[in-house]
């Protein structure tokens, strides 16, 4: 029997998070045997670039595509064509609209992430205070959904006051400048929440440079390997992330299962190896696991893993 070829398509190559996910995919492939992983993605995080990648995957006749999308809608026609040609398509991490995939694997549930990022800040602010969010680009769907969810649970945290949401476009200089702007505009700021790796790193640096370690806690979502310095310096007390290795592993397992004929309707339960199984909701999505929190107690252990 021929190898099953599963393409893991990411937003752009060279992002630590996705490199780790690719590792997980390889792990799954090793477990399954007879599976070849094609890890690919465009140069920039653009939908047009991903479509070119999808076209070449269709041409190669891969068996399955598991994609983290740069645009939930723009990829739909291209992915539909892939499905028409008998290719299994699932999305993971950053989703594709329903018509363009057979299922979507959320790293975690949106409300849970929203709650987590606020909680990370609130945990270190016993007396409450001002917090601000520094996101990726204003058009990043993922981040926007999490921020929405965070705003919803905000009333549950007494005294925590969200004063601003700004966008660093995932550029280090712009994120840094935005963080500086936050500190200048809100002298009483207690925490910066950045649900994106470039943003959280730049904020740490800005807070460190402003000499405000201890005054302002930078938190949000980041990778232990990238955040180790921030935790060491104390600019970040804790942050969260789901395990990208697990995510890549799960996506591969799901793609493999569906390509082998697993049902994908609402309520369907699909196994994903060592991660157990997921049950699809009526939008065809499922959540993998809860985000995991890292702080000085465990960062050393994880920083060399992902």
């Amino acid at each position, binding site marked *: 029997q021929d190898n099953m070829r599963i393409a893991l398509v990411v937003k752009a*190559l*060279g992002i630590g998070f996705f490199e780790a996910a690719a590792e997980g995919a390889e792990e799954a492939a090793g477990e399954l045997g007879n599976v070849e992983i*094609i890890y*690919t*993605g*465009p*140069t*920039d995080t*653009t*939908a*047009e*670039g991903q*479509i*070119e*990648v999808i*076209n*070449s995957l*269709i*041409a*190669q*006749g891969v068996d399955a595509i598991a994609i983290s999308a740069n*645009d*939930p*809608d*723009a*990829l*739909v*026609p291209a992915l539909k064509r892939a499905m028409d040609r008998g290719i299994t398509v699932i999305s993971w991490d950053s989703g594709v609209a329903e018509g363009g995939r057979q299922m979507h694997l959320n790293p975690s549930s949106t409300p849970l992430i929203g709650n987590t990022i606020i909680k990370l800040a609130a945990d270190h602010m016993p007396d409450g205070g001002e917090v601000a969010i520094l996101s990726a*680009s*204003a*058009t*990043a*769907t993922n981040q*926007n959904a999490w921020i929405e969810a965070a705003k919803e649970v905000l009333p549950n945290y007494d005294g925590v006051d969200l004063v601003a949401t700004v966008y660093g476009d995932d550029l280090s200089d712009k994120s840094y400048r935005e963080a500086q702007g936050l500190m200048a505009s809100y002298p009483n700021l207690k925490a910066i929440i950045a649900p994106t790796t470039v943003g959280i790193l730049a904020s740490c640096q800005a807070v460190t440079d402003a000499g405000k370690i201890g005054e302002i806690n930078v938190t949000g979502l980041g990778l232990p390997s990238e955040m180790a310095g921030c935790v060491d310096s104390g600019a970040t007390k804790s942050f969260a992330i789901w395990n990208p290795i697990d995510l890549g592993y799960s996506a591969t397992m799901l793609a493999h299962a569906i390509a082998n004929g697993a049902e994908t309707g609402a309520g369907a339960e699909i196994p994903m190896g060592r991660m157990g199984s997921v049950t699809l909701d009526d939008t065809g999505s499922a959540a993998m696991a809860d985000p995991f929190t890292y702080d000085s107690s465990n960062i050393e252990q994880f920083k060399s893993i992902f």
Partner: protein
Amino acid sequence: MTTTTRSIPDRLRSPLERNLKSWESLLMLVAIGIFIANSFASPYFLNAWNLSDATFNFTEKAMIAFAMALLIISGEIDLSVAAIIALASTAMGAAVQAGVGTEGLVLIGLAVGLACGAVNGFLVTGLGLPSIVVTIGTMSLFRGISFIVLGDQVYKSYPADFAFFGQGYVWWVISFEFVLFAIIAVIYAVILHMTNFGRAVYAIGNNATGALFSGIRVGRVKFTLFLLTGLMSGVAAVCLTSRLGSTRPSIAFGWELEIVTMVVLGGVNILGGSGSIPGVVIAAFVMGLVTFGLGLLNVPGIVMSIVIGALLITVIALPRLWSMWRG
């Protein structure tokens, strides 16, 4: 005043000989070479449907590249083309929300393209500003307006028949976009190489003052070229929006440099004055074949752009190196 009138021959070299020694022939060889290399490198390459899919990688960009070629030959440049796509697409998206039908959408897309071209044209010819900086400015301005309008939202739910422009097939594997690309190529080749207007474009690119002093309406010609470039961006916006089925302000981000690269690779002198449409057509295929071929080998996109960048420099450097070695 003269004793004898001597007849001056029309040409010394025949047009055929000229063509054989041209840039286009060199590029054609490159294209054929890449085609052959691709068909050996990947078993999936020689397949009608796959090749048809591959054309989508360049058709929209090439449509703009043709108009851009004329603009660059005339000594100007438009870096705002990708931003015009964004604005035109946003306008179409807004129109969808207002219940406009397919024909209306197409008209709106083209009209916005024209309007943006007119803005550039006015700033450059009306106010006499250098086009490279003007269009760096309008590039931010046009896309900035789509951001203002659309923010983090998306326009979708385009009418079903709107999908034809970017996803439809005219016959077998021949897509609508490809047919449109071919038609536009022919139109521009005719305009540039066979008409008064085309001749004026060359004259202006070589010496705008001289052209003005020869009774050419330099401002009007340049303005028209900006209009055409805007219009082509509008056409590309229709196709791309239809192909993506949705609009976000970041649509077609970074295309301007790829389009300029395509034009330059096609042998158009970036300083103006010379170039041809057949050259740009071949360059479009070369870029499409390279990215598709490397894509089939799952080479990372960034490596592809290295290849394109290196191709750009070497293809231009080769003839010069060659002549340096010989003399």
